[in-house]
């Protein structure tokens, strides 16, 4: 058991930067997700914690001890690989027992702990199977069991759900989170799936091109994104380029005037971020009506409906709960004029230049 501290960790390959700099403090029992598109450096960061990649700068501390120079086998991390990486020539029981064997745990205790952890991941009765005789979901649980059984100081998950089908993924997500909380494991999970990160982690680290863009809880990232990248990556978001003309008045480059939060922000070039669910619609009396938007397309999604709109040349997406069948909104069709409205405070102004904020 222990905390995990990344202190200015970076990795370069020659002149190519894989990870610019990551500062991160994962508290005992906390689950933190590294989230970002492929190539953002999240997997390299995880591999630096496991010891498979040597950082070119910074330090890795596990439970307060500097392990930057320690080889992987001396680090007390338990990792679940994306490919599971089970030992194909060993039975399920042998796979799970391997880490205990390496830790010189006696046979009787070993057998008992293997039994317990297999019950925990619901694999009782499959002890003598070989990995190739198991389904993908079962293999995944063996990989979990193998990493959990040694009670690692840091639990590492590398895209653990990406090889499962959608239905199983939701289930396993809940299971992993429940296990992690029950066992109080300090956990770092790498994922490119924002839903996975939002539902599983206590805090998220959004990365892009080797840099940390923002660290925070799901709510913080969603409601107060630090920059357009985070706003666009976590959840869906309308990002409109333009400039702040006067407090509360944002002029898009297309000419549309959009109300926004009347804060003390300096005037000038900005990006306006507006979540699609914050845009309310009402049928407009006539197409010529001033300030009305035009409906381009409607996508019915059951509980929700997506409205693809255009306001003076600026494309906007609105997502609303599907209105009741007798609502006039249900009779809208592409080409119709609609009036849009939103709380000014919902439209956030972000710096047009990508920032390097490391909020926490």
């Amino acid at each position, binding site marked *: 058991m222990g905390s995990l501290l990344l202190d200015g960790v970076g990795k370069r390959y020659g002149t190519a930067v894989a990870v610019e700099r990551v500062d991160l403090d994962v508290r005992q029992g906390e689950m933190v997700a590294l989230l970002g598109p492929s190539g953002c450096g999240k997997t390299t960061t995880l591999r630096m914690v*496991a010891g*498979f990649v040597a950082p070119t700068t910074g330090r890795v501390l596990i439970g307060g001890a500097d392990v930057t120079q320690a*080889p*992987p*086998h*001396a*680090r*007390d*991390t*338990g*990792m679940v*690989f994306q*490919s599971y*990486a*089970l*030992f*194909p*020539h*060993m*039975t399920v*029981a*042998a796979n799970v*027992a*391997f*880490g205990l064997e*390496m*830790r010189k745990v006696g046979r009787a205790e070993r057998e008992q702990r293997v039994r317990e952890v297999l019950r925990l991941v619901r694999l009782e009765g499959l002890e003598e199977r070989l990995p190739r005789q198991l389904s993908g979901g079962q293999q995944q649980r063996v990989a979990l069991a*193998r*990493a959990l059984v*040694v009670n690692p100081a840091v639990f590492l998950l590398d895209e653990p759900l990406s090889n499962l089908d959608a239905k199983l993924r939701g289930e396993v997500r809940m299971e992993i989170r429940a296990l992690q909380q029950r066992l109080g494991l300090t956990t770092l999970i790498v994922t490119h799936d924002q839903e996975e990160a939002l539902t599983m982690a206590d805090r998220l680290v959004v990365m892009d091109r080797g840099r940390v863009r923002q660290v925070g809880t799901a709510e913080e990232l969603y409601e107060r994104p630090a920059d357009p990248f985070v706003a666009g990556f976590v959840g869906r978001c309308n990002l409109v380029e333009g400039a702040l003309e006067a407090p509360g008045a944002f002029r898009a480059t297309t000419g549309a005037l959009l109300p926004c939060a009347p804060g003390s922000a300096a005037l000038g070039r900005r990006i306006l971020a507006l979540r699609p669910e914050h845009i309310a619609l009402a049928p407009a009396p006539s197409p010529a009506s001033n300030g009305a938007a035009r409906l381009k397309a409607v996508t019915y999604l059951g509980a929700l409906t997506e409205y693809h709109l255009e306001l003076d040349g600026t494309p906007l997406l609105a997502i609303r709960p599907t209105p009741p069948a007798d609502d006039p909104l249900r009779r809208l069709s592409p080409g119709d004029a609609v009036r849009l409205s939103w709380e000014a405070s919902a439209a956030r102004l972000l710096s047009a230049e990508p920032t390097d904020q490391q909020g926490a």
Partner: protein
Amino acid sequence: MAALVLPAGILVALLLVAPMVLLFRISLNEFSPTQMMVEATTAANYLRAVGDPYYRSVLLTTLAVALGSTLLALTLGFPAAYWLARMQSRWKSLATIVVLFPLLVGNVVRAAGWLALLGNGGAINATLLGIGVIAAPLPLIYNTGAVVAGIVAVVLPYMVLTLAAVIEGIPRQVEEAASNMGAKPFTVFRRVVLPLALPGVAAGSVLVFVLCMNTYATAVLLGGPRFKMMAPAVYDQFVRGNNWPFGAALAFILLTITLVLTVFGSAALGRRYRRRLAEETT
């Protein structure tokens, strides 16, 4: 589909099975110094080969050299094969060519080169004698060590490439998982890499062992006139002694022993691997 196998099948039948049958028939004939060969059905040639201490020692030498060379090739070849298999860079194809390169040089040419280097009048001895470090030439060739070294140099590429092909199939992440679970590098090798590479170890060893058992040029050129292995002995009987029946019997003994050891060796390797696995994991 089966028809596709036919051309190769006919070729093998004509060029391998037919001569073998013929050879076996000859091995049962009697030798006659005047008529060369007398039609007969006798085991006399086999009994002579087994009973004669000289031929027994030739057979033992052959077995010892082949076994030793195979083990040496395996020991030297595994690290090289691992390194080659795990190579990521653009130099990998170049490295493969370098490994293959010795195969471009024929056995005879290579052994002749070694003679020029290691012989009594060769480069090394001439130099050492010239600067007065030694008074008499060092016995660098015409001994078992020279033959084994020569054979290993010939067969190493086969071993390395066979092993590398299998090691490449072992996912890197499986090794990482083992070290993540606390296994030190040698333990990762012993518990994960070696067991998973065992099919390659078996295939490479069988291939190399068969090549070693049938060594001819290297044994003759680096072993010298008094060093005898089976293949040169067979040649001697056919060409110098004109004793085809006895030569055929020697050839068949060589063939049978190679075959039996190969089959049982690889079967035993598989069994032992499974048993050890079971022991360590229960």
